[in-house]
């Protein structure tokens, strides 16, 4: 029986990739949700005004980036050495990301 190379395709679980992909989907969706929330709730907009010259956009993006990185790190810790159901995870990630793109479009975001 041939020995398996540590870097052969079968030796690399898809969990690393799945965590990165779903993390990006979560990050994209979080950005849109936080942007809408900051626009709807003036108090939240003021809280997210991290850097005055840029205004609430600074807090919206910083918070979304933090959520993205935390979600990615959490999923990475759970999945990095495993094979996971990539099909459903990829579908969820793409849906979340597309929703993020659509919800950042003001006429759609304003519906909420």
């Amino acid at each position, binding site marked *: 029986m041939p020995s398996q190379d540590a*870097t*052969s*395709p*079968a030796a*690399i679980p*898809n969990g*690393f*990739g*799945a965590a*990165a*992909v779903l*993390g*990006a989907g979560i*990050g*994209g969706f979080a*950005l*849109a949700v936080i*942007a809408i929330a900051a626009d709807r709730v003036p108090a939240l907009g003021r809280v997210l005004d991290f*850097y*005055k*010259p*840029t*205004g609430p*956009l*600074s807090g*919206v*993006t910083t918070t*979304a*980036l933090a959520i*993205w990185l935390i979600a990615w790190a959490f999923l990475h810790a759970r999945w990095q050495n495993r094979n996971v159901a*990539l*099909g459903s995870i*990829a579908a969820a*990630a*793409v849906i979340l*990301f*597309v929703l*993020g*793109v659509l919800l*950042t*479009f*003001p*006429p759609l975001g304003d519906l909420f």
Partner: protein
Amino acid sequence: MHGMGFGALYLLACSGAIVELWRRYRPDGPGEISRRDEAFLRGYLLVMAGLAWLTVFTGAYVIYPWYRAVPPPGTSDLAGFPQRLLLSSATTIDWHSVGMEWKEHVAWLAPISITMACAVFFKYGRHLRSQPHLRNVVLCFLLASFLTAGIAAFLGAMLNKNAPVAGGRVIQIVTEGK
């Protein structure tokens, strides 16, 4: 530098990365992928991620404060105050309320997706050929990155056409009640 430098380079690089990942890394792709080819794409994606982050950070923290500068009371010439200039006319108000409002958020989706694509490629490299589902979803995110960067670039160009951001040394901050 923000748009015509980092942003334009990113858009140009995007098409190259999409073609390379689609053509060479598909399961029945042409020929063997050498370590040199793999290293090239790793470096290429890393530079792209750097360009994407430089674009959004310079946009949000250098250009945007100039865009939203507040004119001193009594100012009639709003040429140096792009946001106020757009808001001053019914024919241009949507360039701010739709154009800039979309641009300032959608642009951030590009670096998120290219960073993910870069990380996945660093891990899997040539082995993406044997992970077609993973390659396909990375390609989807690369396309989304291209699309979101394209939207931001187009809106940026149109906004600059209607109300040029000239920049300056003094930045006045928007404050409520003033």
